């Protein structure tokens, strides 16, 4: 059991998300920084999809009532066990009564707390991820509060088996204030003038204060739309289209006044022009961006996007090998 003493600013239970339900309007949710979350689970001997905690900007403090292992990954954050500073990106033993405390995030936006055995609240539609807007999953569909008690699963490996294992620290991404993010352009981009699309790919976009798990609002130049008759049902505003589906990572431009990148708690569809989609491998970068950060978008082809995706999997595979974990289920090799 994990007893929450202080919840932090916004701490939610997440796993790798809830697939197959986008068609009812239910987004996948799940950890925004996929790499950090999966590595966190590997470090404590869990399957990659075991549920953990996603911490936003400032961390929680809690006590455990059973023997466990903990790893903290993602954003750079001060972290203590029984008031003793502890290192991120490696496993630590926890004994019953041990108190874990996270401070404010120093670099990045989201840290991940993974515990051996994972958090075992009940699954909803095949996932334990929290979707706050729909009051669904996690713990009653909400963020953690002081006094919450979270069940922990039985560790998959002997508690000491993972201790002392490490991997090449150059594999750990360092959150940046200036981000280079790759995009596959398209979808409704033909609605926007070539000049506006060129400008989109050449200027720095500033992350606004409206940046959460649903989407990141970015400040930059306005968009110009191509002239032409409005299609029936599309609405009078040139930035509106007949409502369609929005991919995770898609970039929409309501009113032509701002750009919004949709993330894992996305609204699944609507009537705004979408001009492209951030490639899956680079959504981790946005997950660690905070208000005031700058994003520069680079257009890539679909095959470059797929190559970037393979490279991310190769990095995970390398972490797994260096930690001595040899199969997808996260079980320890002999």
């Amino acid at each position, binding site marked *: 059991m994990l007893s929450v003493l202080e919840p932090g600013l916004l701490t939610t239970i997440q796993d790798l998300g809830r*697939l*197959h*339900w*986008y*068609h*009812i*309007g*239910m987004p996948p949710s799940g950890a925004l920084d996929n790499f950090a979350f999966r590595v966190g689970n590997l470090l404590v001997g869990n399957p990659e999809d075991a549920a953990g905690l996603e911490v936003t900007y400032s961390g929680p403090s809690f006590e455990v009532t059973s023997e466990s292992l903990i790893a903290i990954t993602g954003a750079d954050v001060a972290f203590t066990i029984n008031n003793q500073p502890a290192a991120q990106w490696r496993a630590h033993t926890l004994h019953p009564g041990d108190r874990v405390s996270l401070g404010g995030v120093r670099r990045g936006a989201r840290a991940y707390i993974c515990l051996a055995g994972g958090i075992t609240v009940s699954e909803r*539609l095949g996932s334990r991820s929290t979707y706050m*807007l*729909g*009051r*669904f999953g996690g713990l009653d*569909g909400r963020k953690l509060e002081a006094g919450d008690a979270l069940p922990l699963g039985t560790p998959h490996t002997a508690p000491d088996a993972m201790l002392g294992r490490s991997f090449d620290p150059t594999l750990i991404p360092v959150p940046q204030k200036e981000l280079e993010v790759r995009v*596959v352009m*398209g*979808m409704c981009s033909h609605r926007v003038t070539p000049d506006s699309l060129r400008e989109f790919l050449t200027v720095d976009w500033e992350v606004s204060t409206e940046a959460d798990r649903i989407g990141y609002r970015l400040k930059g130049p306005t968009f110009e739309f191509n002239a032409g008759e409005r*299609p*029936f*049902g*599309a*609405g*009078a*505003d040139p930035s*509106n*289209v*007949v*409502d*369609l*589906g*929005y*991919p*995770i*990572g*898609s970039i929409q431009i309501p009113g032509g006044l701002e750009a919004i990148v949709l993330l894992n708690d996305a*609204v*699944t*569809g*609507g*009537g705004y022009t*979408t001009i492209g*989609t*951030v*490639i*899956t491998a680079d959504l981790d970068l946005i997950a660690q961006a905070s208000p005031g950060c700058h994003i520069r978008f680079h257009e890539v082809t*679909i095959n470059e*996007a*797929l190559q970037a*995706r393979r490279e991310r999997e190769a990095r995970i595979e390398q972490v797994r090998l260096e930690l001595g974990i040899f199969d997808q289920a996260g079980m320890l090799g002999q």
Partner: protein
Amino acid sequence: MEQGGAMSETRYDYGGDEYLLVVFSEAMDLAINFKLLSICREIERRHLPGVIEVCPANASYLVHFRPEETHPDALIRTLKDLERGIQSAETLTSRLVDIPVLFDDPWTQECAKRFADRHQDPSVSNLEYLMRVNGYSSKEEFITAYCDRPYWISMVGFVPGTAWCYRMCPPEQAIQAPKYIRPRTDTPERAVAHAGVFLCIYPVQGPGGYQMIGMSAVPVYDPEERLPDLQGRYILANAGDRWQFRPIDMDEYNDIRAQVEAGSYRYRIIEQDFRPGEYMRDPESYLKHLQEEAAHA
């Protein structure tokens, strides 16, 4: 437009490395929606390798896939072949669902007052505004016309349970309204609202820009699965269902609310075969036929 929807130049495009967007038309068109629902149902039936799910929209659909199992270009080829194999919309299983609505209710009017500064004409209610831009002067006449036929669920999404409801009439008879000038930051849960050519019911309390004209007595999203008809499915809407809105008074509204709160409310749902070709040939008489069939079900 040919029977069942003729389409030219279907556009296949990448939505990053995990999604494909397939656009049939830039405009809303029921015939096109009928056909794309047939295509989406066929994609699901085939269990194509790598396809996680397909999400139909008004005049397009989105496919979510795993590129490790299928290259997007290979998937596009498969989808093009599949589209060629479906020449006209097939018969669709479509549920007719009764939606009791309290029009001109106090809650959405209170909400409209709070956000008066974001509206085109705050001197009238959203309902009166919708009446005026569509040329109606009598509230009763407008509500009767508004509810004189079922609405086609052409798309589900936004948040769980949001359904785009399209009045089943020729485009020139569509009831239309602009969205709020600036979106509200709040809308009551179950508000019935209209913008563009669509009606929607807000599944949860939250921001919104549609013109609010009433309150549904019944929920369209049930995350706690309290109602027997929503157990295991969480939401009321299926794309391809028809919703019949029925004006009710405050007494009936309160009565249904009590049943919903007690978890005993049962939706009135009649499952029917819907033949897009027959609808396209003669919408009025086909709707009448379906209505008579439903009355005897």
